[in-house]
């Protein structure tokens, strides 16, 4: 008997990077004192009417175009009804029959293999509020209530936890690149529901379960893996699966059943009578299309072809749009691309992490990186001095200074003067007779210790190539 094949589809919710909510002017800023970003409208008070924020539609179209979707010239909103304390009107305005975007795809890469994941639709809807459970009481915070969301619904084209991870990661990049969402998962700005069933190849899909609200990439992967195992075990033991909604407990690493769905859920959907149909002209679509940045996948291809970078390098550079842009700005000046890439992947990412900064907050630009890379490639400074300069560029006191100016100020120019280096090398050999003897006795690797000593003595400024060469000459005489 062949093994079970998982069939997985994702519904991803992304909070939109619109400054105001979807149907009123309230702020969407994260946090804030409970119930301070609210008005009669987003409280669903009687007599208030929803006023569609066009920015929400624009961002949805942007996401759709970036995900190769078709855009509905005429789409509609629908009411989806259910009672929950965090849903003020007792219905959510969403889209059922005519979403803004449909029929797209996203290509993911896994172990060098490309796979196309079809996207069924992307629609706009309003977010619910938040429940705060306390001792003996539950409070409702509606600050996020009625903020604009998009829901991106994939076809069941994913077939394993790693693909779930890769899909979410790639999707996150696309949403970040396009500025559709800030995707801050810790703020719940990107979350997904995972639908999973098992079958044998060639046979119909099995009973499907849905896991709700996974809010990190690793939780999504772990939850998918767990659920596949759970369903496999039940089926192999001859048990029966029920259509159910599950909740993933990331701390315990297991899921539990929230409710078993006996019937199709009844949401009393009908067309929202208060908002006018959404009309999107071809002209508007083209304007938005023209505003799309180059997507990460295209950039990776270009980095390989144009700059001869490895898959690995191209992958890291494109994780963040800000860093990828930084690389592009530097490389397009003609600075050596590999050195530029190395600075980003090494010192710059390390320093951002250490200082807790986002890539968007980098205090210098592509021209500075280009200058730095050129200083290194021409031998004007050593690569270790380059690291030092990078560190200094992060310091507020050096704001606005170019790498060249910092090099001068700090006296970091590389010493490539043969006489000066030769003197330093002689001194080091004299001071380290044992290491010198080791080298001469055949332990050739001992030379690296001496190179290190010379570099130290020169405060990192000596040209390391020359140091190595001169040391060899002196030792082998």
């Amino acid at each position, binding site marked *: 008997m062949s093994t079970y094949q998982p069939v997985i589809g994702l519904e991803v919710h992304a909070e939109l990077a619109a400054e105001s909510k979807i149907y009123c002017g309230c702020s969407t800023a994260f946090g804030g004192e409970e119930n301070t970003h609210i008005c009669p409208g987003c409280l669903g008070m*009687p007599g*208030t009417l929803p*006023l*569609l924020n066009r920015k929400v539609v624009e961002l949805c179209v942007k996401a759709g175009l970036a995900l190769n979707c078709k855009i509905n010239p005429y789409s509609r909103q629908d009411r989806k009804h259910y009672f929950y*304390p965090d849903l003020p009107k007792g219905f959510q305005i969403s889209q059922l029959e005519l979403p803004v975007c449909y029929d797209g795809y996203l290509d993911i890469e896994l172990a060098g293999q490309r796979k196309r994941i079809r996207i069924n639709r992307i629609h706009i809807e309003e977010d619910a509020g938040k429940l705060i459970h306390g001792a003996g009481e539950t409070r409702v915070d509606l600050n996020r209530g009625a903020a604009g969301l998009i829901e991106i619904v994939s076809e069941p084209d994913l077939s394993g936890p790693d693909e779930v991870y890769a899909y979410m990661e790639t999707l996150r990049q696309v949403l970040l690149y396009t500025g559709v969402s800030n995707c801050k998962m810790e703020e719940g700005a990107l979350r997904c529901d995972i639908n999973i069933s098992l079958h044998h190849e060639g046979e119909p899909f099995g009973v499907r379960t849905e896991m709700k609200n996974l809010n990190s990439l690793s939780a999504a992967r772990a939850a998918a893996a767990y659920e596949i195992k759970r369903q496999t075990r039940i089926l192999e033991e001859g048990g029966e699966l029920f259509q159910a909604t599950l909740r993933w407990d990331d701390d315990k690493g297991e899921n539990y059943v929230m409710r078993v769905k006996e019937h199709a859920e009844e949401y009393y959907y009908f067309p929202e*009578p208060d908002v006018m149909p959404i009309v999107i002209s071809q002209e508007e679509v083209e304007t938005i299309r023209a505003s799309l940045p180059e997507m990460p996948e295209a950039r990776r291809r270009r980095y390989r072809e144009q700059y001869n970078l490895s898959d690995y390098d191209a992958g890291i550079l494109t994780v963040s749009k800000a860093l990828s842009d930084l690389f592009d700005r530097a490389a397009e000046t003609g600075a050596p691309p590999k050195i530029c890439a190395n600075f980003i992947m090494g010192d710059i990412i390390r320093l951002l992490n250490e200082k807790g900064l986002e890539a968007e907050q980098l205090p210098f630009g592509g021209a500075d990186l280009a200058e730095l890379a050129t200083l290194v490639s021409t031998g004007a400074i050593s690569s270790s001095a380059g690291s030092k300069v990078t560190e200094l560029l992060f310091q507020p006191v050096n704001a606005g200074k170019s790498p060249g100016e910092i090099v001068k100020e700090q006296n970091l120019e590389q010493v490539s003067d043969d006489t000066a280096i030769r003197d330093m090398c002689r001194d080091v050999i004299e001071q380290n007779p044992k290491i010198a003897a080791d080298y001469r006795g055949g332990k050739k690797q001992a030379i690296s210790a001496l190179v290190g000593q010379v570099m130290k003595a020169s405060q990192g400024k000596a040209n390391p190539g020359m140091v190595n060469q001169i040391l060899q000459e002196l030792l082998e005489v």
Partner: protein
Amino acid sequence: MQAAQEQGLATLSLVQIGKLLQNRETTSSEIAEILLDRIGASGNNAYVLTNEQALKAAAISDNRRIAGSPLSGIDGVPAALMDNICVEGMRTTCASRMLEGFVPPYSAAVAESLEQAGVILLGKLNMEEFAVGPTLGERAENTLFATTKNPVDAAYTPGSSSAGPAAAVAEDTAYFALGSDVGGSARQSAAFCGVVGLRPGFGRVSRYGLVQCASSLDQISITGKDAADCALVLSLIAGYDARDPAACKDRTPDYLRNLMGAVRLKELRIGVPKEYMGQEVGEEIRQSVKSLSAAMQEAGAVVEECSLPHTDYAVSAYQVIAAAEFSSNMNRYDGVKFGYRTASYENYDDMLRKTRTEAFGEDVKRKMLFGAYILSQEGFNAWFKPAQRVRTLVRDDFQRVFGKYDILLAPTSPVTAWPVSKQFSDPAEACAMDLCTVSASLAGLPAISIPCGNDSAGLPIGLQLIGPALSEDLLLQVARGAEELCGLV
């Protein structure tokens, strides 16, 4: 003598009282006091709340007049709002226990417009709970207020859901009133009480702050003493409002000025839809339509029978769509954020169930249940979708006849006011009362009911004029002309 004079002031029309104020022949304080006294003395239950600030506002208005800086021609005129129109800081109940203590922190667009014109808000007017009507049999015990009586004859109904505005204008306790018209209640109540009821077209008046009943059908209505008064009020409240997504950006004409000119009945083509003149319409009412038709013809208009073939389906389609939207709009009342909350409960579900069970009346519950069925997957395909198709056909009917006619003339209601003791055998019988009004609601067209004589029982007969989209200007002019022919002006 003084009492007669006071009575005289109260019975004046809005245009007339406005002139007296402008000429400083009376003051806002004087007429506000007269009207408040009349409200206190009235047993008709038109009002459910009187505004404690009314006299203060009237005194301030008088000062504006003295200073020579009135806010409008009718600065200082007292008027009233039905209790589903929100006024900041003033209790707004929709005559439901659910909103018994609800004080909105915002005002409806129309309430703001009136305030900006210096109109004195005398109070809030009675209605059926959440504008659901007509009630079947006994009023539900949950309903907050005593039933409104018809000032013409207390033994007869003042009409269904918009009884308060019609009764207040008819008993001379408000110079005009704003309410809402969903399937025709403002027009029907006006007809039953012998006053004028105008439903402006879709988009003409902002609905912001009007508590939802059925969203695609809700419209602010004007109840007044004559067409000129309605024209004056419409000029004040019409116009674009960014807070209502349906608000149209068309320029607002000066309806009153345009109406004061000679009405050119001579060039007018008037259609009388035969579907509104069938056996289900009372003989005396049909006769009244025919008399007015003849008079209009004499005045030079072309009056012909025309057809709106989908009228039969319109009543059912209206019921389906109105119930669906109503049921959805009622979902917001869950006891969490505003309105009534049950006293004790175990958890959220329990609170929800008890709150809604205790605070909604029987008619509201019946309509919500019907609406929920309509919106179920089964009901949606079987009922909602066909109803939407009928709605399109109803619109098409109108579009066709308005290619040939400028205005349609019809009864407002197939019957005059029925006795308060009447028990409808079933909801369908009650719904048939909407025969002549729901089509204009479904199509979003402006329509007006004007009184045109009485039947043999002495009860007012209302005749209705329906115009094409955004034709309020012409509609009011023709209404004015018809009033003259009915011997009113």
